[in-house]
Every structure is written in C-alpha cells, then in structure tokens.
C-alpha cells in the first residue's frame, strides 16, 4: 500500500492529463460519458490534494517520512532528474486549485459547457497545468507547466466565442506569449551561469555567485520577476486582466481566479528559497511598492467600473496587490496571514464571478451601463449562451433571494467586512503590519502605507459594490433569472468554505503560520538535495 502512496504527488498531473485526453476520444456527442469522466477525475484530484495537504501537515503519515515529499520522476535523483515537491505551500495551493476546479466544473454543466467545443477537456488540461506549476521543483518544468495552463486558458477564454471575447483574448494571448519568451530567456540565462535548473540547487548556488556571474543572474531574475508579475496581474503589467476576465465565461473566470495566484506563488517560492540573496525583483522593497501601485489601480478600477464583470476583475487585481505588498515585507511576519487572505480571496472571487453571471442573466443588456460605456464595450453577442433558452433540470425557487444573499456574502468577503473569512484575513494582515518592526539598519518601507492602502481599497470596494448591487437587486425592470441547482450548489459550497474558514480561523491560521515558519527554514532544499554542499556558484 505504502509503495503506491509514494506515487501520490504525480497524480494531480497525470489524472487530468489522461482524463482530458480520453475525453477527446469520446467526441462531442457522448456528453454523458465526458461529464462522468470529468467529474470523476476532478473529485479524485481533490481527494489526492487533500491527502497531500494532510501528509504535508503531518496529519496523515506520509510514505516519505517527513513533511516535504520529493517525487523523482523516473527515479532520477535531483539535481539530475526532474523532481516534484510537495510541501505545505504547494499542498495548500493544490487543494485550492482542485476545489475551484470542481466547483466551476459542476457550475458549467448546467449550460456553459455546451456553449462551445471541448470545454471539459480544456478545463482538465488547465487543472493539469495549475497543479504542475505548484508541484514542480525545476525551473524549466515550471515554464512547461505555465505553457500547459496558458494554452488551455487561451482556449477557455475564447469559450463561447463572440467579438468581445476574441478581442480580449487576442490581447491576453499576445501578452502571455511575450511573457513566455521572457521566461525562456531568463531560464536559459540562469542555466548558462549556474549550470542547473533545479530550484533547490539554484537556492544553494545563487548566493555564492560574485561579480559578472552575479550580475547576469540578477538580470535573469529581473526578467523572471517580470514574467511572474505579468501572471500575478501586478501594475503596470495588468491591463490585459480586466477585459479578459470580464469577457470570459463565468466558470472560466471562476477558475482563472487562481491563475494570478500562480504568479504570486512563484514569486513567493523564489523569494523564500533565495532568502537574503534574492535578486531585486524577489526582494522586499520592489514587491512592496509594486503591490501598492497594484492596489491603487485595482481600487480606482473598482470605483470606475460600470459593469459587474469588470468590477470583479478589479477585485482580483486588488487581492493580487494586497498579496504582493504583504509578501514584500521584510521577513515572514505577514506570510501566514497573507496565505490565509490568499485562500479566502480566491474562493470568494471564484464565487463572485459565478454569482455575477447568474444575476445578470435576467437583465436587459446594458441596463446598468452608462451610454458611453455601452458604446465602448460593444453590442450584445449574437452567440452569447446567456440567451440559450433550453434549460435542463429544475429551476430553483426564490432565485432572487438566493442571488441577493450570495451577492452580499461575496461583497462582504472581497471587501473584508466582518464576519466572514475576508475580514479575518485582512484583520490578521493589519495586526501583523502594526506589530511589524523593521530590523535594525533596514530601510524597509513604512507599514503605515500598507495599512492605509488596505483600508482604503476596502472602503472603495464597499462603495463600488453597494452602488452596483443596488442597481441590480433593487431594480424593477427585470425578470427573475432561472437558476439550476447545479449552478447554485457550487456557489453555496464555495461560500460555505469561506464561512468554515472564518469559523475555523484559529486552526487554519496555525497551519498557515507553521507554513510561514517552514518557508523561513531550509526544509525544502534539504529535502530535495539531502546532504548536498556547494562551494561554488558557478558550475563550469
């Protein structure tokens, strides 16, 4: 039994790969078979992810005997082979990704899945890319998984077609293709200098570099930082985000809520592994000010947004900015609360995208728009699947009451008002920022800036959301949208998870704080490269 359990870390990559590939063989007409396959695979991924979470947290005894699991592909030991690494951080992200995958999958079954070709296989490949990016311990492999998730996301962002989607998708694709090319340059440069692509070995070698080699690695790190910041949606690299997320179909936008966090994850991973030797883009100050600027753009965007889907895109930017700023603090005081905020905000924004789509279904198009923005964002899509009249299953009663409640809960979560988990996340961030004391001699940025930005963005969020919410739910010119149980259940589940996160805030925060302590130590490097010592940064 334990022999099989050893192979658990590869499952989040292999399961969606095979499930997605098998679905392609079934053809569009065998929808039932495809649906069952997709549900089975996604539920299995969630189970695997939760098991890995338990193992890395020490709740379930792990076959690798410590809380960092290293899976050597083909049994080639690191640094020669490619490894997958399961630690606390990647297990948290993995579970989050699988949760979103399942919720959006169930949601999409009601109608969106039929709005275009190959939705289910593409979403499986997206999950594969996301899981792989969280698991891999190899820089080039990280690039490959980024490409897998991006390729799938290119397909998904166009799902449902229509001029608005294609236009937003075009920009999204170009920006990400350029970012991928930068990633390649950075990876090649790092390999050229250090002679390795294994992230743990890089953590050993980079601090030893001096002179020209150090400068080259700094340049490569700058490029790498740009790539991750593009993914994270940091200002000024985030202008593609709002149109693309707004135009994407609701379940797609829901699962995209974690894509920006893949960038944040990569930044945190490199920052913590390289420690004090981290080149500028991963070090504190840069990330702090970039994060502040990102919060500012997102906040202004929220206030200016006329459409709910654009507003939701802006909340994603604000949460990215908050995370970048929090992780930009010196040391690890804000890392635990930051992770809590990350989980809560990803769950909330995914639910938010889906609630918005349901709430807008019953409305005359452009009822909430000013004349100017209606002109700017185009006419009604003729192929918009929101117009599909055929409805499967039973519509749920009291749809408006459900939607109103869900909207309020989402608003409370994304703005960080009590009593839900958004508040706990923001409160602990603020508490940690107030208690923060910069080390002697450090010219760390003032925590007051962070506190002000966090509070102001919350206030702006409340203003913007209540304004738009009033127009939607207290409007008399609307028909009640028809909802399916399969659409209401995933939203409810995501919101209940946030409630549970608030209820179990104590244990959850302990877990996240332990994760932060683990990140501070050298556990990752020691697990991947046991006993390896490096005396020279330069490999040749």
């Amino acid at each position, binding site marked *: 039994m334990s022999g099989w359990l050893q192979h658990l870390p590869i499952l989040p990559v292999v399961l969606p790969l095979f499930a997605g590939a098998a679905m392609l063989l079934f053809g569009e007409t065998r929808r039932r078979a495809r649906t069952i396959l997709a549900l089975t695979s996604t539920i299995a991924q969630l189970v695997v992810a939760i098991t890995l979470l338990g193992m890395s947290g020490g709740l379930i005894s792990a076959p690798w005997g410590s809380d960092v699991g290293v899976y050597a592909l083909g049994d080639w030991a690191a640094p020669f082979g490619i490894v997958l690494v399961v630690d606390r951080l990647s297990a948290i992200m993995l579970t989050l990704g699988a949760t979103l995958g399942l919720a959006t999958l169930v949601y999409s079954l009601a109608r969106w899945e039929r709005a275009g070709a190959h939705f289910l296989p593409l979403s499986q490949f997206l999950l594969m890319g996301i899981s792989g990016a969280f698991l891999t311990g190899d820089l*080039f492999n990280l690039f*490959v998984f980024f*490409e897998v998730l*991006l*390729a799938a996301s*290119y*397909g998904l962002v*166009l799902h449902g*077609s*229509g*001029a608005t989607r*294609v*236009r937003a*998708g*075009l*920009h999204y*694709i*170009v920006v990400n*293709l*350029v970012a*991928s*090319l930068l990633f*390649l*340059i950075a*990876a*090649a*440069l790092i*390999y*050229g200098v250090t002679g390795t*692509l294994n992230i743990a070995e890089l953590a050993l070698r980079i601090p030893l570099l001096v002179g020209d080699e150090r400068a080259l690695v700094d340049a490569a790190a700058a490029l790498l930082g740009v790539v991750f910041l593009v993914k994270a949606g940091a200002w000024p690299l985030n202008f593609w985000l709002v149109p693309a997320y707004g135009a994407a179909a609701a379940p797609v936008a829901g699962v995209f809520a974690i894509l920006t966090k893949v960038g944040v994850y990569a930044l945190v991973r490199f920052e913590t592994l390289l420690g004090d030797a981290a080149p500028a883009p991963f070090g504190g100050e840069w990330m702090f000010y970039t994060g502040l600027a990102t919060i500012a753009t997102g906040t202004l965007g929220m206030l200016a947004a006329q459409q709910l889907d654009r507003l939701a895109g802006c909340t994603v930017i604000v949460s990215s900015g908050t995370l970048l700023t929090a992780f930009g603090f010196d040391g690890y005081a804000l890392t635990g609360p930051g992770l809590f905020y990350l989980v809560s905000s990803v769950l909330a924004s995914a639910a938010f995208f889906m609630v918005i789509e349901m709430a807008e279904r019953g409305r005359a198009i452009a009822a909430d728009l000013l004349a100017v923005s209606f002109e700017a964002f185009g006419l009604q899509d003729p192929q918009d699947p929101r117009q599909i009249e055929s409805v499967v299953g039973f519509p749920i009663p009291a749809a408006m009451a459900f939607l109103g409640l869900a909207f309020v809960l989402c608003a409370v979560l994304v703005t960080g008002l009590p009593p839900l988990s958004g508040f706990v996340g923001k409160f602990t961030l603020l508490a940690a920022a107030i208690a923060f004391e910069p080390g002697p001699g450090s010219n760390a940025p003032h925590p007051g800036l962070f506190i002000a930005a966090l509070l102001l963005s919350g206030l702006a969020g409340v203003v913007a959301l209540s304004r738009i919410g009033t127009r939607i739910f207290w409007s008399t010119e609307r028909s009640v949208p028809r909802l399916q149980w399969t659409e209401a259940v995933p939203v409810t589940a995501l919101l209940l998870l946030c409630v549970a996160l608030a209820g179990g805030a104590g244990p959850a925060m302990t877990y996240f704080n332990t994760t932060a302590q683990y990140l501070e130590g050298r556990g990752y490097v020691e697990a991947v490269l046991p006993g390896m010592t490096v005396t020279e940064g330069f490999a040749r």
Partner: protein
Amino acid sequence: MEIILALAIGIMGGSGVYLLLRPRTFQVIIGLSLLAYAVNLFIFSMGRLNLGRAPVIVPSHGSNPAFYADPLPQALVLTAIVIGFATTALFLVVLLASRGLTGTDHVDGREPEQE
C-alpha cells in the same frame, strides 16, 4: 562565430519587438515568430558555442564531459520550439477569428479614428 550569432539574435530580436508593437495582427504574429527564433538561438548559445564536439556519447571519448556538447540546452530548445509552434498556430486561429468577427485586422478590433 560569437559575433555572428550575437548579431543574428540581436537583429531578429529587434525586428521582432518592432513588429510586435505594430497595430496589425499579422505584423504581431510575425514579430512573435522572429522573437521566438531569437530566443531559441539564445537558449542554444547558453550551452556555449563549440565546434566539433560530439552531441551524444562516443565510446572512444569515454565519459569526459569536455569532449561533448552540452545536451541540456538542446533539449530545452526542442521543447521551446514545439511549444512555440503550437502557440503560434493557436494565435493564428484567434487572429483569423478576430478578423472574421470584427472585420478588421487591427489588434483592437476596430480601426483608429481618422483625424
């Protein structure tokens, strides 16, 4: 040899960036392809430029790495070429869809207003 390769990478990269910033989708896709070529050559050069070294194991050379070219950048280039090829093909489809849906090949989906 170094200078020729560096010039090739520089010229292709420069032309690629220029085309990427142009407003027509066809220019953008050619720009992306040129940039991808430049990047592929760059990755290749990161294995150091050598002449007359064996790419795979030759029994008479034994296991001394000094006799062999670095195989890793070659593997990376191969992966990058495949991925670049796929994404370019995908972008081409989106480009055509955009042309069909909006009636223009401008990247913003509409012609700039004449002044």
